[in-house]
């Protein structure tokens, strides 16, 4: 069975490519797989019926109790025959139904075959979750099949409707199955049936499972998707909506009925909904003028009947249910296929337009007549045999005194009458010769290939009637073992005592026969009274259309979704931040209020200086929020930074203080460079609305944070690890500067990460500034042209640097500047301090291990040296000062740092393990060297690279973008390459220099 299942899958994958060569004959290949499965089932049948089920097991996800366990017991066996047999015939039929040039037939063949495979798996699954897997697969595949005519909106809508409806049911069922498996302690169906758990939870679980089954089988109130699904090609309707998918729900009920038919409300739900569906479906079918819709509502009606009898849960009922299921598959598939042929040949399915077809196509009419007779329950067809069995099973209990059974009998008889009526209506509508309607043109398309499938199905329905004993042998084993009746006074004949009911054409003049006769006569009467009934139909219009209800619900969900989303997704950053902060305050505040822990011992300050600094910091923070100009805001924010560094130095952390000051300086410079290009005033939208609320949130967050700090510190019970650091740093890290040892050794792993942050930040600055031509949506403009222009300009700069003009050449690029922008004083200072600053930076780098300093501070100092060169001499001076690319500096720094981390691994040590080298060198004397210094060099380089990158981007690039010459070049560059260079712009403005 697993092999066959795999074959279905493989076939589905191969069919689409095969279609190119085979066109519509691909269906003949596709039919082979279900045919094979059918043959296999026939061969193993006798063994299964005489006792031993066929079992195959494979593992999948054992942790979820999801296993590929397939079992073919008598019930599965019958279902297998139905789904594979009808499947094979429908696929054969498709070869005639589709023309060789029909669109998408490869996809269609693949999907239909996959669907057959899913059905095959569904009826064989032993594991409820595996069953669910196939269950949902059939939903999705049916979605694709219903939507086959994708160009039609109705088709797409119906497909979505069917998918959503059945998946809704499916998910409800999944929840039920999870609960059920939980209660039973296993996901295996036989184990669940044997355990038959009880209790409120089980009842809930079972009802949830029933919801799934009913939605799949198109029972009220989920019935609407089935008529909608008639948008599918007819073979799909014949297979999915007659024989296979809609039977899945019935199958599931049949599976669980033995254990759960006595669950409270099971029988009531199924009988009431089933009967209502049966009668409503039959009634609506009488109104239909589209033959296919007539069949669809007929199917809904029959499914109602099936659900009633399947859910009844007695031995005879189970027997009857399975017989009816088989009979229904045979006659309903036949009829759909017949409709397909009519539609194909006559070009319409409207019974008002069809006339004289019976004479034109007598064979077709005969096939249809057989199927209809079976549907109406006429002897000697199998439908009659099955309906007799249904009536018998219910009558036993009705006569035994079960009220529900009596209601069921009455309902079934009424429903059967409607069934008989719409059966006649179908035949009359399709084949009769009607006055006032032109006869249908000839149906020359109908070849034997087209007729084969319906003929086989119809004849099977005919043959099984007289051969009811044979059918009984096949169907009965799955029913045996069930209770004989549900009514208290029912004859409790144990199975096998000779009294049990068997399928047969003739049981004698029984009450069942009488009821059958009554139903048929009533059906004829209803058909004859079609004129008044049509008037009644016109008047009694269903107040609520379930399909419209579906659309209302969907529309309601859509509107709800939009409303909820516009409530949360304001697109407003302050709103998002406010929500986050409110959550923070609420969460921590509630904990603080409920909890009993108070703050620990509070020491307000170590020195009064801290208070002063704190006041300044708070004041400048508040000022920053009220600043009207960007530059003011930047400055006051800077004050908080300097305040921080003052706090650091008071607390005895000179490294941090130095670094913080340098960071503030570099940040300030970067800000100033950026602010050149921004409007001086802050925009209106900053802080103009809801100021009070924002202030409230801000104060609340600050207050909460402060209280938390006190409470958390007050709860401390153990000494912090940092107390051990100075000793560790000196003894093992060979450094007296604990902060530096922490950065480059103890916690160098963090530093390595922060270097990555620095590099990413540098890259980001470049990314945002150098955006010219980088939009991946645009073709690159003439790059060569741009470069040529730049080079020309540089040449001009070099010419201006001729010896004769070197009078004021304190710095290299000085002459390139507009004289009005030059400051000789600045140039002189930079000239004098640059090299000294670089030396200081290197000193800081190497001294850092024992004294304040380190790679970070050193790098920043070196960066400031570069800043000086840039400020004095502009971008060409910067280029002269740092002739290497920022990327190379960043990359080299990171290479050094990361290699220091990786190198010890090769020696078998932990990453970043440092080594200490101590040696006497000539001249230098005693030298100590810790390998972590190499790491610090990496830090140094990365920081220099960052500053360089910031200067290049925020400085030089912004200069360049603001430069009128460069603008002209850029304009030329972004124009098509063919445009001649705008020669005029350059030299003129250049003339000033």
């Amino acid at each position, binding site marked *: 069975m697993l092999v066959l299942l795999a074959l279905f899958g493989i076939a589905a994958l191969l069919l689409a490519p095969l279609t190119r060569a085979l066109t519509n004959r691909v269906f003949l290949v596709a039919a082979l797989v279900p045919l094979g499965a059918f043959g296999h089932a026939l061969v193993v049948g006798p063994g299964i019926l005489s006792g031993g089920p066929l079992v195959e097991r494979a593992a999948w996800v054992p942790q979820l109790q999801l296993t590929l366990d397939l079992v073919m017991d008598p019930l599965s066996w019958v279902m297998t025959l139905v789904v594979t047999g009808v499947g094979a015939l429908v696929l054969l039929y498709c070869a005639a139904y589709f023309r060789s040039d029909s669109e998408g037939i490869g996809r269609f063949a693949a999907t239909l075959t996959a669907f057959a495979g899913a059905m095959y798996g569904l009826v064989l699954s032993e594991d409820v979750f595996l069953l669910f*897997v196939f269950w949902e697969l059939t939903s999705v595949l049916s979605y694709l099949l219903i939507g086959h005519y994708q160009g039609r909106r109705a088709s797409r809508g119906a497909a979505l409707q069917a998918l959503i409806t059945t998946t809704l049911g499916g998910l409800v069922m999944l929840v039920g199955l999870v609960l059920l498996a*939980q209660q039973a302690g296993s996901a295996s169906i036989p184990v669940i049936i044997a355990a038959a758990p009880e209790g409120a939870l089980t009842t809930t679980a079972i009802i949830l499972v029933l919801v799934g089954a009913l939605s799949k089988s198109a029972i009220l109130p989920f019935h609407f998707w089935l008529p909608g699904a008639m948008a599918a090609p007819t073979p799909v309707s014949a297979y999915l909506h007659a024989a296979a998918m809609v039977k899945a729900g019935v199958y599931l009920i049949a599976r669980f009925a033995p254990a759960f038919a006595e669950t409270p409300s099971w029988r009531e739900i199924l009988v009431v909904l089933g009967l209502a569906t049966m009668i409503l479906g039959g009634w609506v079918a009488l109104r239909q003028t589209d033959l296919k819709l007539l069949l669809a509502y007929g199917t809904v009606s029959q499914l109602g009947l099936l659900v009633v009898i399947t859910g009844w849960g007695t031995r005879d009922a189970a027997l009857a249910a399975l017989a009816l299921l088989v009979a229904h598959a045979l006659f309903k598939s036949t009829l759909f296929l017949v409709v397909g042929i009519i539609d194909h040949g006559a070009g319409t399915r409207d019974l008002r337009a069809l006339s004289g077809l019976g004479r034109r196509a007598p064979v077709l009419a005969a096939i249809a007549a057989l199927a209809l007779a079976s549907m109406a329950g006429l002897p000697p067809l199998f439908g009659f045999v099955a309906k007799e069995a249904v009536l018998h099973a219910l009558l036993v209990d009705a006569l035994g005194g079960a009220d529900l059974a009596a209601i069921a009998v009455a309902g079934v008889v009424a429903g059967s009458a409607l069934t008989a009526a719409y059966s006649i209506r179908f035949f009359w509508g399709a084949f009769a010769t009607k006055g006032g309607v032109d006869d249908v043109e000839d149906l020359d398309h109908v070849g034997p290939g087209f007729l084969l499938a319906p003929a086989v199905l119809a004849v099977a329905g005919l043959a099984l009637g007289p051969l009811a004993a044979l059918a009984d042998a096949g169907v009965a084993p799955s029913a045996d073992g069930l209770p004989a009746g549900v009514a208290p006074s029912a004859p409790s004949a144990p199975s096998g005592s000779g009294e049990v009911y068997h399928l047969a054409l003739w049981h004698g003049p029984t009450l069942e026969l009488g009821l059958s006769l009554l139903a048929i006569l009533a059906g004829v009467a209803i058909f004859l009274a079609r004129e008044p009934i049509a008037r009644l139909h016109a008047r009694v219009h269903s107040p609520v259309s379930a399909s419209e209800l579906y659309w209302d619900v969907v529309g309601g969900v859509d509107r709800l979704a*939009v409303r909820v989303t516009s409530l949360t997704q304001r697109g407003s950053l302050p709103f998002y931040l406010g929500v*986050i902060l409110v959550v923070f305050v609420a969460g921590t505040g509630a904990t603080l209020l409920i909890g009993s822990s108070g703050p620990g011992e509070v020491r307000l300050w170590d020195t009064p200086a801290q208070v002063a600094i704190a006041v300044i910091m708070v004041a400048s923070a508040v000022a920053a929020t009220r600043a009207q100009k960007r530059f003011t805001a930047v400055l006051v924010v800077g004050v908080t930074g300097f305040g921080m560094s003052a706090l650091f130095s008071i607390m005895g952390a000179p490294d941090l203080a130095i670094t913080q000051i340098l960071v503030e300086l570099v940040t300030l410079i970067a800000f100033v460079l950026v602010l050149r290009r921004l409007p001086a005033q802050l925009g209106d939208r900053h802080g103009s609305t809801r100021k009070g609320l924002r202030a409230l949130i801000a104060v609340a967050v600050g207050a909460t944070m402060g209280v938390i700090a006190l409470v958390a510190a007050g709860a401390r019970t153990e000494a912090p690890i940092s107390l051990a650091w100075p000793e560790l740093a000196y003894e093992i890290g060979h450094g007296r500067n604990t902060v530096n040892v922490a950065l480059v050794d103890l916690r160098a792993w963090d530093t390595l990460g922060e270097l990555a942050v620095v590099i990413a930040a540098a890259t980001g600055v470049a990314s945002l500034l150098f955006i010219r031509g980088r939009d991946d949506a645009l073709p690159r403009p003439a790059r060569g042209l741009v470069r040529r222009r730049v080079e020309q300009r540089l040449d001009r700069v070099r010419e201006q640097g001729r010896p004769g003009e070197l009078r004021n050449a304190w710095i290299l690029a000085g002459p390139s500047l507009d004289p009005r922008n030059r400051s000789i004083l600045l140039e002189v200072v930079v000239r004098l301090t640059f090299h000294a600053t670089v030396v200081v930076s290197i000193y800081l780098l190497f001294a850092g291990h024992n004294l304040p300093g380190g790679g970070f501070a050193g790098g920043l100092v070196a960066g400031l040296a570069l800043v000086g060169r840039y400020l004095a001499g502009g971008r060409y001076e910067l280029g002269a000062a740092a002739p290497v690319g920022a990327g190379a500096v960043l990359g080299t720094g990171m290479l050094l740092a990361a290699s220091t981390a990786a190198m010890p691994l090769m020696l078998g040590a932990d990453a970043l393990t440092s080594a200490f080298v101590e040696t006497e060198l000539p001249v230098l004397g005693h030298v100590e060297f810790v390998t972590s210094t190499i790491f610090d060099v990496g830090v140094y380089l990365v920081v220099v690279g960052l500053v360089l990158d910031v200067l290049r981007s925020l400085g030089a690039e912004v200069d360049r973008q603001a430069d009128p010459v460069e603008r002209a070049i850029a304009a030329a560059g972004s124009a098509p390459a063919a445009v001649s260079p705008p020669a005029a712009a350059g030299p003129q403005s250049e003339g000033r220099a």
Partner: protein
Amino acid sequence: MTALVPLVVLVPLLGAALTLVAGRRPQPQRVIAIGALVIELVIGIVLLIHVDQVEPLVMEVGGWQAPFGIVLVVDRLAALMIVVSAIVLLAVLVFSVGQGLADGDEETPVSIYNPTYLILTTGVMIAFIAGDLFNLYVGFEILLVSSYVLITLGGTESRIRAGVTYVVVSLLSSLLFLASIAMIYGALGTVTIAQIAQRIGEIPVDVQILLHVMLLVAFGIKAAVFPLSFWLPDSYPTAPAPVTAAFAGLLTKIGVYAIIRVETVIFPGPELNPALMVLALLTMVVGALGAVAQADIKRILSFTLVSHIGYMILGVALGTVEGTAAAIFYIVHHIVVQTTLFLAAGLIEREAGSTSITRIGGLLASAPLVAALFFIPALNLGGIPPFSGFLGKLGLFQAAAQQGDALAYALIGAGALVSLLTLYALVRVWNLAFWRSADAVEGDESRLLRSVEEAPLNTSTVSGARTTPRLMTLSTAGMVAVGLALTVFAGPVYGVASRAGENLDGPGAYIQLVFPGSSEGAELE
């Protein structure tokens, strides 16, 4: 074998350094970047096999013993995350190379895409192996900065605006995280996760909960848990497709990963579980409704991303081995499927010139391969069996059913509902963008779009359709294949997730790992 632990971080970092040194030459850049990620993947797989079959790995960086130095820990959860992340990052990189995003930048002083992408990888990996709370913070910082660079790539107005939302919210999250670390250090005097776990029992319960709440808020922003999630759909969709794909797959999951560590190792107590469950429910439902209200595929996917974070939080919030295991499996599944769908959205954008379902149609006919590459992961995300999304959901439902209280049942119901809404949102895309013919788009008054057209922020532009480089399709197909492999080999993968869940049953195992033979670890069990 322990040497492989830091290499997980050092390989992409060295790769980033080399791409920077390589400058503006695209060919070596590509070779270095892809090479680094291939090596990363191999390391990850070796680690996973070793950790799963032999023993978890611990390295004390620089030889400094915990708690004084930084300790790196690779247990099953970390190894699993490393492997999945490496796969996703590699596929996305290949996709970007195909798209041409990784090339060029001749005008800039540093090359941008490749180094930043590798630094992002570094951040991801640092976060996974950190056995130290502050080091975890460093990982988050790297993610924040590098993802900001990637989200604003190209510097268009919409990207800068999205980038500002992203970076400010992320900074706030970082700030809260940093404050939490400070408070934890204040209370416990340590930042080594294992030692925090050892000492946490010594302080009063209300202070424990206080610290717990702080960490959860910080990580909840990262993970996009309702109501800390509003920023996400406003930040992600505008970035270039592969960038969004990587972010959607990975970044929020790192938040969830951190939450798992918090809930299982640092604060294993059940005090906040009910609250987390309620938040999980709201995250799921509000996110799914958001997806239904969108017309743009990338925005739909951003909302499903938020929504399905709820599933993972649900698993974690149950506080059981089964719940954690299911959450871990769901993370793995979701990283793969969400990335795949965003890549597929990138293909759609390329083929149709837009990702708005009000504007496009006929893709099944014009690009059948893209259709398949969208449909399969869409069903997977919608939780349709047999795909991994269904398996993860089944695991979560079973774990919740085991819990068996009203809240758990409510969450199961919400989970089923959200699954349906996700399916609805995605199948609607299929109906309109793939099935509906391109000619029918103009003036189509589909009932499916009636409310969406009134929704806010549904503007999108249609640019000309272009041919799709084969590499883009190939990497998307590769990701679809990975998703299918997760389905077929769900048994072994779920096995690892289950065992990882068992490792995380209380802090005992984790403490033993970092402090072997410590009595405190044993006491706590």
